[in-house]
């Protein structure tokens, strides 16, 4: 039986934000014990599981906060971790965003949630449909909702609303604020993919995995059925049969329990009654395969110049379709130990580059990179005592980027229908984005 003895939320600086004792098995001083353990360790994250006498701490980090559960029993780590993640998602749904400030402002709401979610340390429910009947406190939004708060990532509507763009902050409001917004009902469908790619020094694609999910964020007061059509020529599985044309292939996919798959096999239609808040409707994977060319190629030249400096000439090509663009591109190029300073020649003023000594890397940032173009940069790094062997330390280049309006697999939402038709104007939004989970180019 999985029982949680205490649950607490700490800020990254160790401030107590929320503390709840469910079973009275240990005192509140364990919060400090936990934080001492955390600070005593070096490294980017302390171990997920730590023990103090016969108490186990399990924690996750979400939104820059420590979400910690203690337990005296040897419980399932999968369940505790999944629960803590789910709890943070609930808090995000209810408070609109997840941050130290949001938690501080909404502590009463969070206590209320914690009271309903767990009883005597046992998980009762984490479904927002059930919880909405019990939660009474209104959320205090830490950031007022404003239509002018446009960010660089646009949200594009489904086919009926092609011209409309919603701000990205539209999806970061508390789920219950819909009550006072005059029943404004909206539904957001995000197709989010994470790409992890390794390209060899000879340009050969060594690894290409895509993990994706379809998330639905629902702000509709009454539950109604949603029909979501995916690409018709979608094939699931590893069968060797390959059609011609633009078929979308996924190797594995799994669905949320609430999804009805009756029409999935014939028409690729998902039917579901979404709960309020955010849920992952479908998860899928594509391994060792990319339907199109990898988005970036790098052509590096690395040498030592006569003055003993490290010269790195980097040519980066973006192979996206010409109308698309990658945003927030950042390339991290490891440089030898002992590097002192950097001088660079970049091809446009909006780019920048700096030497980050702590990471021993040159970071080259490109805010926007259009498909079909090529950028080049020359970096001169001052490394005292640079030997030819040190050139080997210029390690694999890691790229991070975001591809808005694109999915690596080509998965798309053809349509999104609500039935029965909502009384008020229901707005439907679909957005696509591909992130780089890890995009490594060996040099």
């Amino acid at each position, binding site marked *: 039986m999985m029982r949680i003895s205490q649950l607490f939320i700490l800020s990254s600086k160790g401030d107590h934000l929320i503390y709840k004792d469910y079973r009275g098995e240990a005192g509140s001083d364990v919060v400090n014990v936990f934080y001492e353990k955390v600070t005593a360790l070096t490294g980017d994250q302390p171990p997920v599981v730590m023990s103090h006498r016969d108490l186990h701490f399990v924690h996750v980090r979400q939104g820059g906060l420590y979400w910690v559960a203690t337990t005296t029993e*040897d419980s399932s780590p999968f369940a505790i971790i999944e629960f803590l993640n789910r709890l943070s998602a609930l808090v995000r749904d209810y408070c609109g965003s997840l941050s130290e400030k949001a938690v501080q402002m909404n502590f009463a709401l969070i206590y209320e949630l914690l009271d309903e979610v767990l009883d005597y340390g046992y998980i009762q429910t984490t479904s927002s449909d059930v919880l909405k009947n019990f939660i009474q406190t209104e959320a205090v939004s830490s950031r007022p909702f404003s239509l002018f708060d446009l960010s660089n990532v646009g949200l594009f509507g489904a086919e009926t609303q092609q011209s409309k763009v919603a701000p990205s902050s539209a999806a970061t409001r508390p789920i219950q604020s819909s009550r006072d917004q005059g029943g404004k009902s909206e539904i957001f469908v995000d197709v989010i993919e994470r790409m992890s790619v390794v390209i060899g020094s000879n340009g050969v694609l060594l690894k290409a995995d895509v993990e994706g999910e379809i998330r639905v964020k629902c702000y509709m007061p009454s539950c109604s059925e949603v029909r979501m059509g995916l690409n018709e020529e979608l094939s699931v599985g590893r069968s060797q049969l390959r059609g011609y044309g633009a078929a979308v292939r996924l190797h594995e996919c799994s669905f949320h329990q609430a999804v009805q798959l009756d029409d999935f096999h014939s028409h690729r239609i998902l039917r579901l009654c979404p709960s309020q808040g955010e849920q992952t409707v479908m998860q899928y994977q594509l391994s*060792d395969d990319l339907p199109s060319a990898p988005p970036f190629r790098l052509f590096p030249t690395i040498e030592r110049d006569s003055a003993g400096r490290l010269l790195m000439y980097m040519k980066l090509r973006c192979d996206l379709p010409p109308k698309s663009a990658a945003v927030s591109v950042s390339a991290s190029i490891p440089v030898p130990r002992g590097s002192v300073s950097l001088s660079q020649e970049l091809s446009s003023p909006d780019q920048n580059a700096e030497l980050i000594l702590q*990471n021993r890397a040159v970071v080259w940032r490109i805010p926007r990179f259009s498909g079909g173009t090529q950028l080049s940069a020359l970096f001169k790094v001052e490394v005292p005592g640079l030997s030819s062997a040190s050139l080997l330390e210029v390690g694999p280049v890691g790229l991070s980027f975001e591809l808005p309006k694109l999915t690596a697999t080509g998965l798309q939402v053809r349509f999104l229908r609500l039935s029965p038709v909502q009384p008020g104007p229901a707005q439907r939004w679909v957005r696509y984005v591909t992130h780089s989970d890890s995009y490594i180019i060996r040099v």
Partner: protein
Amino acid sequence: MPYLGGKEAVRELRRALSNPNIQSDPLRYRNVVLKVIRAMSQGVDVSELFSEMVKACATVDVVQKKLVYVFLCCYAHLNPELSLLVVNTLRKDCLDPNPMVRSLALRSMTNLRLPSLVEYVEQPLTAGLRDRAACVRRVAVLGWAKLHSLQPGSEIDASVVNELYSLLRDPDPVVMVNCLRALEEILKEEGGVVINKPITHHLLNRLKECDIWGQSEVLRVLQRYRPQSEDELFDILSLLDSSLVSPHPPIMAATLSLFLSLCSSLPAVSQAALERVRGPLLAACGSGSREMRFAALCHIQLLLRSIPGLLGEHYKRFFCSYAEPAFIKRRKMQVLVELVNDENVVMILDELKGYCTDVNDDTAQAAISAIGRIGRSYSDKSLEILTGLLGLKQDQITSAVVQTIRDLVWVCPQCSDTVSSALEGCEEVLQDCQGKQALLWLLGMYGERVSSAPYTLEVYIDGVRSETSLEMKMELLTSTMRLFLCRPAETQDMLGRLLHYCIEEEGDMCVRGQALLYYRLLHCGIEETRNVLQGQRSDPSMGVLIGRPAEPISQWVSSFNTLEPLKYCSVETEPASRGSPEHLASVLKPNTDLPDNLDCGQLQMVHSGSDSAGDRLNCSAGLMSPGAEPCVTLSLSPAVSPEEFERLWMQRHALHSGQEPADEDDNCLWTEETIRCTAVPHCSPQNLHAAMQLVNIQTIAFSPSHSLPWKVFLYTHTLRADTSSSTLILGELLYTGEAHQQCSADREVEVEVKEQMDATADGEKEIKVTLLQQPRDVSTLRAFLSVLTTVIHTLSSEMA
């Protein structure tokens, strides 16, 4: 951390709470209560406000009620008397028409944790069990468990227990799961809730109604159930099959745990379950949550202990992504090491090479030692990378590489040539103690091949006065002594200086004692010194040729889906700092309960009594009839070290593969035989090892079970009773399996592979035995072969 002026703030709050103007304005009243709770959660001691808060709970505002109850539950134990006042309000709320208020009151009442209140709570709890609203029943059921924990010694009310059992049939799945939880706690003394056949089937049928938390609880409780028949077992398994591949890791893990406990006696089913769970586990390894990734990785390490080949083709999933934290990278590398096989070794090493210059030193070190681990099976490729890293001339990398090389050479002495040529120049780069120690050990062991060895040692000896580390001094003494044995002319002077310093000036007793020991040892003569100092150069208990032996699932199943695997490095706990390998590497375990010599006459009896194995043996034994076999005993001493074995074997092998099979060699016999058996005994290597040791045959290296080609190298000494002449027999067992399997060229020991038919008509397997005897003595060889055959037959019949 209390505020400055916390006292003042509390006084302010008290004033506001008792202000009648505020009390009459619901919104303002609620806001003051909110402030109290905020102060409480920030760590201010607001317990003084208890009586004011008790008053505040008499309100119709549900939000305020909830807030006050949070406060009361926190401080009730400090004010048991005042808490009695609350009980009346709570009991009244328990009769409220709103089910939400009823459940809130019931929950708060049981959360006060005051034994004195028990008598007031029982009645509403009993009523709560029969409430119309499920949310009240949920609270009431757990309320009984809370009540029980308040009075641990008290008697259990049988009627309550019965009621809880009957509520297992409640239409609400959460009530059902809560009943299980409550009964489990109340009946803890009696071993928890009874899991009999009707309850099990009821729970299984309703499994799908529960949410993921309920499902994982039910699955966990069901682990106690033992099906009564095989049919029932398979019904349960097929019912659970979809849960096994659930996208929710908690369900997947709980189901696998249940599968493994139900099928503990059916290894094939367990194996199939592990294979089935591969997909969901891999998906969890790519989960968006780092912590979930970590949990999945740790559990994959458990699975790999039993099925090393489970994920070989998915090795790319364990490549580190560059933003991942170090603790995940480390686990991924540990998994990668386990997954290495002939096909992916190049890719994996290439990937690991990229991590060696990571900005995080821990990651870099872990990558270097991972390459070293792979080097035990693929030494050439790994050493190439490791020696390449030395070229970077960076202290931390060099230190990690030298330590890794030391550990590698200890296990794979055949690398020593490459290593000795790579060591030159390292001493200038090394800064830390552990790296220096490793270098000293290597110089002591292989100093005769490193031309600069004496000069390197001299630098250290000259600096010994300022050396603070005890371990360094000890290592320096031993290495100088060893080097002196092979290069006396160059080393004598510096050894003298070192011994003089250590004996005359050194303050530490250990170092001084060691130096005195060596000094006296030198007095005993050079041969004596050599005997003492030049012992083992490599791990004498060398076990597996490639990979690790597969463990039975039962070894780790109890820790599956617990916190255990996440806490420790379950596999390969290699301490960051360690001394010379010979001090720590597993010492040759003497089999004290076995006689050193075992008469194989008894074994003969056993074997001639057994069925057709005897006939087969006679066929393979050829000329000799069993009766004519001389009385031969096998013995393990003197031990043959792996490198000695390899030297003899390769020497002979080169001779024989070059020419025609030449048995006419003066004093040696090289022969090939075939043993047929029903199943190849690639059981667990430990069993094989133990079985062979029982008859005094030492296995020196073997490939992991189920790998092809499967090989075992072994040796023994024979002693004839009649002539008291002894011979040494070295042997290789080879099973190639499918004809297309080929021996990879980069194994340390290359043996020509004769393509063989996998199985003969009657399903028998053929194991090729290659034997080398020195000096030749056909009759003892036959006797040995018969013993070997018997062992293999016994093992294979156990397998079948």
